[in-house]
């Protein structure tokens, strides 16, 4: 048995096994559950890194379930890709790395954060299932399997959002709203799957992509898939669930939910680029995505300025930052049919958008963790009630400054690098878009100045006399994320050249995606 061949499935299967073992272990020892979770996710993280090295040096990987060949030869000699498979190229592994890193640090942060609640074993089990769902959405090469993993991720995240719902009403309300929108979206995805199956008798991404004609039915499927996946990513005007869900979930879960919404974003890009690619009307669909991006950026940030709840404010920023990714990739899509413009600025715009996904996961994760640290010690999320916390929580203050500077796009942090790529390339597409993006960046800085002032600055308040620094595991998780942010900020070229550029190229070149499956048949 050669282990290295099985790495793609082990990344998914080990957290899955751990998710089922955690409640069993929890009967014997409650403390062991957290350690088992962390262990499983660390194995997953190591395997993801190993797989990333393999993919970036050797090429895309295909892993078939239950048989050696992805296709079945009928007695008539016809070959058919019927098996469920994982298909992992540079873009998938890029998202996989984000998922692995974020869920690992989410688990570490949870070790102390979640201690005081009941049902810790169920919490860890659901966290692992959420991770499995995200990995599955990113790695799968089968469109129905994608739907299954989407539902696994959304069911697990709903249960985690309403985790505190036994004691408070608001988390249950947020969970209900998220469940409603995500089940609508999942059913629309299923309908689109039905349309594809009815037309092509196929469920394999690559096989559908090689046959797609952009017929009337394909247009309907695209029209169903774009809005629901954009909704799951939190695009305006379907973003209303985002602040509710993000603010009520426990802080480490909020961080993982950001990565989960990005998995939907990945699915949107995968469908538009790898499934349809040049066959669709690139300008129209590109502009649809650009308009989603613009609305998300502007409405997200202006709504954030008036918020009083710290996590709600950050959630609106998550909406706003998603707009940057949609803008960057949308510009790339709009010029997809025009090779000259694509070479000149389209690829750079997409690099900016894709790089921003990773940066956003890191700094928004860090910011949510600092908000969680404040909640952990003060017991409130209301900015009006906070003040002077920098006196008591020095490390958290430093991490918050790093995160806020990164999200506002201040040099030399990582947010600046990806935003610069977006500004400069989008300016050559349409100057107005670039100017709006810069204004949004300034407003982002303004609203984080507000948070910093009202939560951390000011005199020592009498009600927070007992407040002290958060436990060590929480500080550790925040410190490592800060180090990643600073590293990305100092050496953005390493990431762009080695991870982002291959990811963009694997999106643009459809043949590379379909060839890995159909070439081996």
């Amino acid at each position, binding site marked *: 048995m050669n282990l290295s061949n099985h790495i793609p499935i082990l990344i998914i299967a080990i957290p899955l096994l751990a998710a089922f073992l955690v409640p069993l272990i929890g009967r014997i020892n409650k403390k062991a559950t957290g350690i088992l979770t962390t262990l499983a996710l660390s194995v997953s993280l190591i395997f993801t890194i190993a797989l990333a090295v393999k993919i970036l040096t050797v090429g895309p990987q295909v892993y078939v379930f239950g048989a050696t060949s992805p296709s079945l030869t009928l007695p008539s000699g016809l070959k058919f890709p019927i098996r469920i498979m994982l298909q992992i190229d540079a873009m998938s592994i890029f998202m996989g790395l984000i998922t692995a890193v974020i869920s690992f640090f989410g688990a570490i942060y949870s070790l102390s954060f979640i201690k005081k609640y009941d049902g810790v074993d169920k919490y860890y089990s659901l966290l692992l299932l959420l991770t499995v769902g995200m990995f599955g959405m990113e790695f799968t090469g089968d469109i129905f399997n994608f739907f299954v993993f989407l539902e696994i991720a959304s069911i697990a995240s709903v249960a985690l959002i309403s985790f505190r719902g036994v004691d408070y009403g608001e988390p249950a309300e947020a969970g209900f*709203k998220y469940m*409603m*929108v995500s089940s*609508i*979206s999942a059913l*629309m995805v299923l309908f689109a799957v039905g349309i594809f199956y009815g037309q092509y008798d196929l469920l394999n991404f690559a096989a559908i992509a090689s046959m797609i004609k952009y017929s009337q039915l394909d*247009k*309907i499927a*695209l*029209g*169903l898939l*774009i*809005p*629901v996946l954009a*909704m799951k990513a939190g695009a305006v*005007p*379907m973003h*209303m*669930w985002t602040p*509710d869900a993000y603010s009520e979930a426990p802080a480490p879960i909020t961080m993982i939910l950001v990565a989960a919404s990005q998995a939907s974003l990945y699915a949107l890009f995968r469908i538009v680029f790898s499934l349809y690619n040049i066959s669709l*009307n690139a300008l*129209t*669909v590109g502009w*649809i995505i650009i308009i989603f991006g613009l609305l998300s950026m502007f409405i997200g940030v*202006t*709504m954030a*300025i*008036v918020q*009083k709840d710290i996590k709600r404010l950050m959630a609106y920023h998550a909406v706003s930052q998603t707009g940057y990714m949609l803008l960057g990739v949308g510009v790339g899509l709009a010029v997809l049919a025009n090779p000259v413009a694509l070479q*000149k*600025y389209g690829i*750079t715009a997409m690099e900016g958008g894709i790089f921003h996904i990773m940066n956003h996961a890191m700094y928004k994760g860090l910011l949510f963790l600092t908000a969680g640290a404040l909640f952990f010690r003060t017991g409130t999320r209301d900015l*009006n*009630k906070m*003040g*002077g916390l920098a006196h008591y929580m020095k490390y958290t203050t430093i991490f918050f400054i790093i995160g806020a500077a990164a999200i506002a796009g201040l*040099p*030399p942090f990582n947010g*600046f*690098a990806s935003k*610069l*790529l977006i500004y*400069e*390339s989008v*300016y*050559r597409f349409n100057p107005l878009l670039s100017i709006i993006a810069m204004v949004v960046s300034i407003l982002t800085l*303004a609203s984080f100045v*507000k*948070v910093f002032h*009202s939560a951390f600055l*000011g*005199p*020592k*308040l*009498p009600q927070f006399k007992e407040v002290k620094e958060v436990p060590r595991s929480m500080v550790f998780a925040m410190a490592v994320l800060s180090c990643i942010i600073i590293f990305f*900020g*100092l*050496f*953005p*070229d390493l990431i762009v050249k080695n991870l982002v550029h291959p990811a963009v190229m694997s999106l643009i070149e459809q043949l590379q995606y379909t060839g890995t499956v159909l070439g081996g048949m």
Partner: protein
Amino acid sequence: MLGLLETGSGFWSAIIWIVLVLVIGSIVIYIRNKGEDSYKKNTEQDKPFISGNPEESKESSHLSANHIYWGFTEALKGYYNPLVKMHTGNINDYSSWIIMLTVIILIVIGVSG
């Protein structure tokens, strides 16, 4: 060079930026350290000037989040009032937005061909 990111129309290097910030910052600090002759420490000059009113206690002088950017939101009332009203928090509206957007996108994709 390590850390040099090509952006299509130029480049960005955090390391060069940090070096520049250090150089310019040290010049600024040097100029600032030359100082103002008339300034004297531990005199009346150190105290805040509030037109002779008595100074408030530190605890009550903290500006809470509600008051920050009050002018900004007040000036943009026409923009904010409908926008905040739009976020009703009603689950029916959430699903209505999704359905409406789906219909609009279906029409746009269908018409554009």
